[in-house]
C-alpha cells in the first residue's frame, strides 16, 4: 500500500489491518503522554483546496500524535488563488521534501493524479476529492460500526469484520463521496448496505453498485437495520433543484423525531445513528436524533484521529519508498 486513494481498491486484509492498527492507536489518546515517536522527522503536508474542519484538524492531530511535522496549506490565501496549478504546487512540496501529502480537492481524481503523475514522490492520502471518494471517513465509519458490532456479539473487535451487519445510508448520495467510499468498504467487510434517497439524488449507474437502493426510508427501517448513516444535504454542490422544499425533504428522507421513536417501537434498541458531519440539524437529522444515546457522531470524530494515525503510520513507516503491499508482520525479531 503506497497511497490511500479510495476504498474500492482496498483489499479486505489491508482494510482490517488499518482498523486493527487504529484500535491500538486509540489507546494512545488515553495515556499520560499522548504521543508516539514513530514518524519523528517525517513531514506531512495537509493540502486543502476545499473547506474542512474535522478532517483537517483530525489529520493534523493524528500526524502530531505520531511526532510527524505538519505543514498546513489551504488554497485560500496561497498562490493557488493567483492561479498556480496543482502540478506547480505539488512540485513546490516535493522540493520541501514532504513525506506524505494529505489532499482534499474539489475535483474528483485530483489525488489520483498527484499519486500517479510522478510530480511528487510522497505518499498521497485522499482526504476527499469532489464527489469521488473519502476513504479515511469510510474507514472511521467502519471502525465505529465494528466496535459496536463486536460489542454486541461479545467478540474482540481486532481482526473482526462487519459480516451480517445491515447498514442504511440515507440522503444526498449523488453528491456524497462518503457514501461512495462507504459502499465499497462495507461491501469488502461483509456488511449489507441499502442506499435510501430521492431518485433525483441518486447517481446514474447506482444499479451497478454492490448495494440495494430504496426510495422509501420508512419501509427500509421497518425491514430492520443495525446502523443508519445520514448524509448531509450538500447545498453548496447543488446547481439545480433536486427536491421541492426542505420541509418535504426532511419529512420524507430526514431522520426526524418520529423515526427515532419508530426505532423504539420496532425494538431496534441497538441501532446506531451515524452522521459524517457537519450536520444540518432539522433537515437530514433532527436535534433529538443527533443528541440521542444512539448517535455516534462524536465517537466518529474521536475514531477519526485513530484511523488517520493508522493510515499515516502504515503508509509512512516501514522501508522507505516501499512499493509492495506491507505484509502484517507478526513477529519482532530476536533483537
Amino acid at each position: 500500500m503506497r497511497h490511500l486513494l479510495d476504498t474500492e481498491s482496498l483489499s479486505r486484509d489491508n482494510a482490517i489491518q488499518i482498523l486493527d492498527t487504529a484500535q491500538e492507536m486509540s489507546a494512545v489518546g488515553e495515556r499520560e503522554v499522548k504521543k508516539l515517536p514513530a514518524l519523528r522527522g517525517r513531514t506531512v503536508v495537509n493540502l486543502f483546496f476545499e473547506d474542512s474542519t474535522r478532517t483537517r484538524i483530525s489529520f493534523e492531530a493524528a500526524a502530531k500524535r505520531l511526532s510527524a511535522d505538519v505543514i498546513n496549506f489551504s488554497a485560500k490565501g496561497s498562490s493557488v488563488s493567483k492561479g498556480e496549478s496543482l502540478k506547480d504546487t505539488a512540485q513546490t512540496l516535493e522540493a520541501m521534501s514532504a513525506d506524505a501529502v494529505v489532499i482534499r480537492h474539489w475535483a474528483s481524481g485530483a489525488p489520483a493524479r498527484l499519486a500517479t503523475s510522478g510530480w511528487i514522490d510522497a505518499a498521497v492520502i485522499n482526504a476527499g476529492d469532489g464527489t469521488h471518494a473519502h476513504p479515511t471517513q469510510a474507514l472511521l465509519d467502519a471502525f465505529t460500526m465494528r466496535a459496536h458490532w463486536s460489542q454486541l456479539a461479545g467478540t474482540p473487535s481486532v481482526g473482526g469484520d462487519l459480516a451480517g451487519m445491515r447498514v442504511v445510508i440515507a440522503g444526498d448520495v449523488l453528491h456524497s463521496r462518503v457514501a461512495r467510499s462507504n459502499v465499497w468498504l462495507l461491501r469488502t467487510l461483509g456488511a449489507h448496505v441499502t442506499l435510501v434517497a430521492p431518485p433525483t439524488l441518486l447517481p446514474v449507474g447506482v444499479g451497478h453498485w454492490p448495494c440495494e437502493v430504496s426510495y422509501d426510508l420508512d419501509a427500509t427501517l421497518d425491514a430492520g437495520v443495525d446502523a443508519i448513516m445520514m448524509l448531509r444535504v450538500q447545498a453548496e454542490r447543488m446547481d439545480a433543484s433536486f427536491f421541492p422544499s426542505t420541509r418535504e425533504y426532511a419529512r420524507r428522507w430526514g431522520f426526524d423525531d418520529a423515526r427515532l421513536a419508530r426505532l423504539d417501537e420496532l425494538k431496534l434498541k441497538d441501532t446506531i445513528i451515524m452522521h459524517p458531519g457537519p450536520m444540518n440539524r432539522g433537515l437530514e437529522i433532527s436535534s433529538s436524533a443527533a443528541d440521542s444515546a444512539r448517535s455516534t457522531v462524536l465517537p466518529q470524530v474521536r475514531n477519526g484521529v485513530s484511523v488517520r494515525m493508522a493510515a499515516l503510520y502504515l503508509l509512512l513507516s516501514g522501508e522507505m519508498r516501499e512499493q509492495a503491499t506491507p505484509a502484517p508482520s507478526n513477529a519482532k525479531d530476536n533483537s
Partner: protein
Amino acid sequence: MSSPSAAFEEAPFNAASANVSRVVLTAADIDRALTRIAYEILEANKGSANLLLLGIPRRGYPLAQRLAAKLAATDPTIDPQAIVGQLDVTMFRDDLAHHPTRAPERTALPVSGIDNKVIVLVDDVLYSGRTIRAALDALVDLGRPRAVRLAVLVDRGHRELPIRADHVGKNLPTSSSEKVRVRLAGIDGPGAADQVVIEAGA
C-alpha cells in the same frame, strides 16, 4: 502453562541430527529456568510488593504470564492476573524506517498503572538490546516506575547498547550468523512444544 507430561518430549530426530538446528532448551529446561527466575525476582525485590511483570510481544507476554503464575504459587497473596501486562514497543523502535511496516501490538497495563511500581520487563531473547531500549522509551511515556528490571529467557550476547539483564534463564554463546528461535506452546500454533533452538545461519 506447559503440562508436565509434555515436558520431556524430545526434539524430532531429524532436527537434532542435521547441523541446521539444535535444541538448547527443552520444555523442562524452560520450566526450571522460569522457576528460578521467579525466585530471583522475589529475592531481588525482597517480596512481592509493588511488583509488575510486563511482557514484550509476542513471546515475552506468555513468559510473563508463566512467571506470574509461578510467583503466585510461592506467594498466595499475589493475584497473577493483576500483576501482568503487555508492553508494545513497535512504535519506539529505532529501525522502523529500515524494515517493512510492522503492525503494532496491544499495550495493556494492569489497572494499578506503573507509577512507583517495580517493573520487570520480560522478553524471550536478549540480543542487540535495541528492543529493551525501545521498551524503556515506551515506559517513560506511560508513567514513572520506581525501578525497571529485565528478565530474559535467553541471553545470546552481541549487545549493541549498554544494557544488561538482571535475570537470565540461560546464557547462550552464539555466533551472530546463527538464529535463536524460541517456540512456546500456545503462541506458535497447535502442537508446538516449548523449546529453544539454535539454527545455523544461511
